[in-house]
């Protein structure tokens, strides 16, 4: 109401959402990177991250958010995530036998094999799974927030 464009909510909401934004992002990254160990993964973590950006859109207004991170930029982020996914999948049949094969199991990167049965969880496991989780996380953060931003901007056009 009291922004120069008349956008956004009150200063209290703006400051608090600005403060908790980094924490939500870190939590999102945590969920993405522990996808192969705990419940969660790329989609879930990505949805958390996207909700952080949506919170900024609600608090600061769509136009303000667009100046910082436009829908084009966000969807570029998404394209890069998708490309990373396909490239890792294609590396499957260059490095190993088939498309999408988990060629990193047994190698130095993410390649440890955990002991069978219950264990406390070792981060350096899972082969290509953490990489794909990360790619999907990027995709979901970029994509969902771009959709919400585009819809918010279009409904602004009317008035």
């Amino acid at each position, binding site marked *: 109401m009291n922004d120069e464009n008349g956008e956004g909510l009150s200063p209290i909401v703006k400051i608090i959402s600005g403060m908790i934004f980094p924490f939500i992002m870190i939590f999102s990254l945590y969920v993405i990177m522990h996808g192969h160990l705990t419940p969660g993964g790329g989609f879930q973590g990505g949805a958390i991250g996207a909700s952080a950006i949506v919170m900024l859109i609600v608090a600061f207004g769509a136009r303000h958010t667009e100046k910082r991170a436009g829908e*084009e930029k966000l*969807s*570029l982020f998404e*394209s*890069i995530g*998708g*490309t990373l996914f*396909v*490239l890792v*999948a*294609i590396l*499957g*049949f260059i490095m*190993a*036998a*088939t*498309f*999408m*094969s*988990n060629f990193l199991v047994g190698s130095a990167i993410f390649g440890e094999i955990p002991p069978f049965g219950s264990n406390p969880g070792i981060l350096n496991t899972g082969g290509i799974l953490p990489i794909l989780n990360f790619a999907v996380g990027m995709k979901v953060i970029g994509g969902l927030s771009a959709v919400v931003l585009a819809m918010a901007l279009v409904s602004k056009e009317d008035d």
Partner: protein
Amino acid sequence: MNVDWLLTHSPALLIAIPLLAAFLTPVIDRINKKARDAFVIIVLIIAEIIMIALAWDVFTGSAHIYTMGASSPTATIPAQAAVPIRIVLEVDGMSAFMGLISTTVSLAAGFYSLAFVKKETGQGRYYALLLLMLVGMLGMEFTGDIFNLFVFLEVLSMASAALIAYRFYYGDAVEGAFKYCVVSSLGALMVLFAIGLLYGQYDLLNMAALAKVMKYTTLDRIALVLLIAAFAMKCGAVPMHMWTPDSYTVAPAPITAMLVAASQASLYALFRICFSLYGLTLDVTTVGIIIIALGLLSMFVGVTMALPQKDIKRLMSYHAVSQTGYMLLGVGVGLYLLGKPDFDTYGMAAMEGGIFHIINHALYKGLLFLTAGAIFYKVKTRNLNEMGGLAHSMKFTTIFFMIGALAIAGIPPFNGFASKLLIYESAYHVSPILSIIAMLVSIITLASFVKVFHSAFMGPPMENAEEGDVPKSMIIGMAILTVGIILFGLFPGWVVSNIVHPAAQALAAQAGYIGSVAGGA
């Protein structure tokens, strides 16, 4: 990087290359528009070349099996397990045949789009979605896994819906897209529910493995009904055809041509479910009669609805419904006779006719929609009453339209005649009425296209019409399909025995389908 390596991995490559290109197209679009156009065309040509190589290998050799993420492409069942665990791609004759259609139509649509959407914004995403439609079709056609079929069905529907709404400023385009979106997502959810029913009983998702243990219980029957209803809806068979004219009419012309190929991918899924998933366990007589009835209804209702239309693309859309009926009739007769002694004598011929008609329809209907788009490009209207005398200025388009119209009406020497003749001859053995209705529909089709030709191309030239024909890239797009029509019309015997017969054989021989993935049937 030798030829064998390429052929082994080609099923995965054919999905991966257009997919990667689709992700990259919006990025390249931000850098350079010309580079983006060239990139898309090159990707489409590469896909076409790989597809032809793969299809040739499948037609002359055996089906290609590709297990995603396994230690070797043919290791479908892991050492300690009894059933396939991973997703398996299975490219047999029918899949390769459908893949040929998809890539060819996409290539023509890609060339045609270069000029057709030149004045629009958001072209980067337009081409990305075009490539995604190709990915969706190929994914549906190659997969041997039933849940994967659902995923790629959704890729295809979402890309099509978005492209139908591409010219959103017309209003009715968005409306058609919304209708398409509702219909296809409901259909997809029915498919998903049926997959749940099958999975819940057998704990399997691989089609060949499912077919091996299929018991045809009550749950299987309910799943079959859901699957047939959903895919018949998606391919525009008659009781559920309402969305077809609405969305075909408003989509940009190249996309309409792609939509024809897309609904044929659903048709493929329908046939695959009936023949390969259920096969002889189902009651072939009843299901065959249902499919024949769907086909007859589609043929007849489609063509009668087409007669009074004033809108050129709407008229052609109803003809698309009617032509889908021929394919359902041909393959339905095949299903009806499956497992009976008559199958080898004329059941196979009926299947060949139906399947040959799929590729013919994709070619000439695609061409007709492209010519309709060319007319719209020139005179900015789709109403037949407002156009006339276009033969004076649009020489190439006129020739292309004539070839397409003669082919759809089943006039020799064009390809429509070859496939329709096969259907007439073999359906006659089941019941003469089937052939008579089919011939009658064919005659009405000819009448309807004579009317279009007369009101659009004949008569005095339009006063405000610009001189000259449409741009070169559009002519190239139409020419690709025309060459196909003429070749298929001139050498139908060669095509039937070398391309169509392996496809029909792949559908009819369920044991081969099961054996190549899940071991002996």
